């Protein structure tokens, strides 16, 4: 704090025009070095956060690309899903902290090898894998704990005679189970 108060360049810069201020700020000062380092560190940290967030999103997007690459499969745009996601991220209804849901139409067979190969690199663990050659149905659930209470789940359900659903959700299992088992909520859940 004392450094900031005694910094002559910062005191003087209050009386300078914007252009002059920029020139004054760019001048080397004995106090500017630490600040610059902090700014660099801060920038690196922010870049890392964005990179990490981008990686998580990219993982889900690369999963979607695998499904999209399947012959005869095309993505169905659900209006308002981004808005719903934003609301869920703020409100956390029934223990759901985040979700991404994409629906595909198409009646082709699904080869899940690429899908699972991507999941294997993401640190998720396979919980349930069900494949049927007879019906062509596939259901895959991969999950990983996030902190002590939350779990991130990636679910793929494919039925050649129905839509294919890819869902990523971050949920609090305990809260969700409590809400589902609550008899007051049962009729609403059944209606959905």
């Amino acid at each position: 704090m004392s450094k900031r108060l005694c910094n002559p360049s910062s005191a003087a810069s209050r009386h300078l025009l914007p252009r002059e201020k920029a020139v004054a700020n760019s001048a080397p000062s004995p106090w500017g070095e630490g600040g610059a380092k902090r700014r660099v560190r801060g920038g690196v940290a922010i870049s890392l956060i964005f990179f990490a967030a981008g990686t998580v999103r990219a993982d889900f997007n690369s999963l979607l690309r695998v499904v999209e690459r399947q012959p005869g499969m095309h993505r169905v745009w659900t209006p308002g899903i981004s808005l719903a996601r934003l609301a869920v991220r703020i409100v956390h209804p029934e223990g759901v902290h985040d979700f991404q849901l994409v629906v595909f139409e198409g009646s082709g067979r699904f080869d899940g090898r690429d899908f699972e190969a991507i999941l294997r690199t993401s640190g998720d663990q396979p919980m349930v894998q069900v494949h049927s050659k007879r019906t062509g149905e596939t259901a895959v659930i991969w999950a990983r704990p996030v902190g002590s209470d939350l779990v991130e789940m990636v679910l793929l359900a494919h039925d050649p005679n129905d839509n294919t659903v890819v869902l990523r959700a971050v949920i609090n299992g305990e809260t969700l189970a409590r809400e589902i088992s609550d008899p007051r909520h049962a009729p609403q859940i059944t209606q959905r």
Partner: protein
Amino acid sequence: MRHIFISLLLAIPAAASAQSGRINIDIPPSLAAKAAESVDVNLDGAMLRLAAKFLSDDESEEHNVREMVRKLDGIYVRSYEFDEEGAYDRSFLANIRAQLGSDWKRIVTVQSRRSDNVEIYAQPRGETIAGLVILSAEPRELTIVNIVGPIDLDKLASLEGQFGIPRMTRRSKHE
């Protein structure tokens, strides 16, 4: 000598995992590829505790499962259904039996040439069971279940039909 040493090194982790109740129940990919229907369930301790959170604490049946599952270290299930009889070589099961050391006891054996063969192995530890392996080999179906962790035999039946574990007991007509 070198080969023996390498074999011993490879055998140590397998023996250690068998001692903890966990065995490798993965079937060869070539065999899995032949299956018309397959179910793989892998729930380690952390995932089980998370899965247990989805079970209600209020209903008595789910409460029992939840209580039991909380103490377990893992449930692993491999279930395969084939279109033809004899599509898989039953000698594969010998590889699984070979992983079970002397501390494992076979507690149930059902043998039949025509229908299913069931073997249940338990790993007693003190007054409880530290691990359980169920091998069920039918002409067209193969199911392997490995439950790891302290198991209360009285509550074991409550796990039927949960987490991919097939039902072993027959339900009455009224149920």
